[in-house]
């Protein structure tokens, strides 16, 4: 690890100020940032640690779930109110990494990093989350802009997420057997206004919506409705774990499993 100056601001305003410099990096749980720094793939001049800020907590009210950016995966996975409101979201959090990583990693860190194989981006997109930052509110659609890329500007910090409660939803993940990241993960959410389907792990530009599935499922919410819809392999990742054609196939399989398991 290269040397850096460590900051632990006590207010969001101070954090924004410190994080605004070019070479600074914001640290939430550090579950991705620290391994990256240890490999010398990142060499920030300054680390702005958000653990001194009061940004954690889960609130369910008025058909909405609000989750603070510094809420740990384990706390999302274990929240009883969330299990009642959006069980799929709590279950998703329980599938991330391992128990120790879930004790430290945060929803804000995961979403801000926008790893193409991360789980949370699919939930944000499928549930139509509003992402609240230190300066504005954004729809998930506008937030995820590409591989590890988001609409966040330098110094802008995600503070919380607002998820509308769907009628039912489910997340199915085909895990890499070693890393446990998603080779393909599909989040299906059914609202009165229609169904939204988001796919992670597969797209070469990160998380995306599967509009053909959405249209079919909005008419009839059943596995048969999407059985015959072919997912193209164009723009999907190919690597030693799975080639694009296999990932395309898995998207259909995971989507059907999610429809079947949705509650």
């Amino acid at each position, binding site marked *: *690890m290269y*040397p*850096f*100056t*460590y900051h*632990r601001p006590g207010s969001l305003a101070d954090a924004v100020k410190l994080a605004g410099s070019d070479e600074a990096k914001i*640290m939430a749980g*550090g*579950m991705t940032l*620290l*391994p990256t720094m*240890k490999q010398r793939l990142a060499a920030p001049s300054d*680390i702005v*640690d958000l*653990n001194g800020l009061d940004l954690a907590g889960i609130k369910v009210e008025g058909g909405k779930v609000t989750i603070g950016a510094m809420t740990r995966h*384990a706390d999302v996975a274990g929240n009883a109110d969330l299990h009642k409101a959006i069980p799929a979201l709590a279950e998703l959090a329980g599938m991330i*990494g*391992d*128990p*120790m*990583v879930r*004790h*430290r990693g945060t929803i804000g860190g995961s979403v801000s990093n926008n790893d193409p194989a991360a789980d949370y981006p699919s939930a944000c997109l499928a549930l139509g989350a509003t992402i609240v930052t230190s300066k504005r509110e954004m729809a998930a659609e506008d937030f995820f802009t590409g591989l590890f890329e988001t609409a966040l500007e330098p110094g802008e910090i995600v503070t919380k997420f607002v998820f509308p409660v769907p009628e039912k939803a489910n997340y199915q993940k085909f895990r890499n057997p070693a890393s*446990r990241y998603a080779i393909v993960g599909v989040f299906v959410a059914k609202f009165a206004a229609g169904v939204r389907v988001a796919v992670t792990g597969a797209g070469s530009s990160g998380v995306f919506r599967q509009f053909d599935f959405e249209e079919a499922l909005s008419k009839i919410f059943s596995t048969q409705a999407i059985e015959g819809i072919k997912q193209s392999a164009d723009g999907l990742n190919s690597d030693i774990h799975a080639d694009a054609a296999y990932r395309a196939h898995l998207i259909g399989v995971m989507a059907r499993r999610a429809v079947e398991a949705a509650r």
Partner: protein
Amino acid sequence: MASVTLTVNGKTITRDIDPRTLLVEFLREHMRLTGTHVGCDTTQCGCCTVHVDGKALKSCTLLAVAVDGSTIMTIEGLAKGEDLHPMQAAFREYHGLQCGFCTPGMIMSAVDMVRRKGTDLDDKTIREELEGNICRCTGYHNIVKAIHYGAEAMGKAGTAAE
């Protein structure tokens, strides 16, 4: 340099450290508590697992400065004098190790598992919860057995809530 105060196994110490210092380096090199191991150094193997404010974390992926003020428990803090913790005793009794390198992390994870899941653990739960701990010798069979009986013993000894 940054000043850090940690309470490790009941002893509070303050040191000036390079902010790069990982918690595992702090424990092993500054405090000479070498029971916490570094296996992979990439957050995968779990040999470096310690409890920070009562929760299991991987100390190779944690800056010591970031947990300033915390209470840490390492493998050295589990036994009460000469008496092994019930989970340690179970690993010995059921031969839950071969080379022993992963054992400190396995035991710290197992104790955390009991805190979260209770003292009546089935094999499926134990195997799932061991996701973050890798053993390259045993094939896990005796580790799972040791955790099952260790958890049970913790229930009987009333140590589960500690």
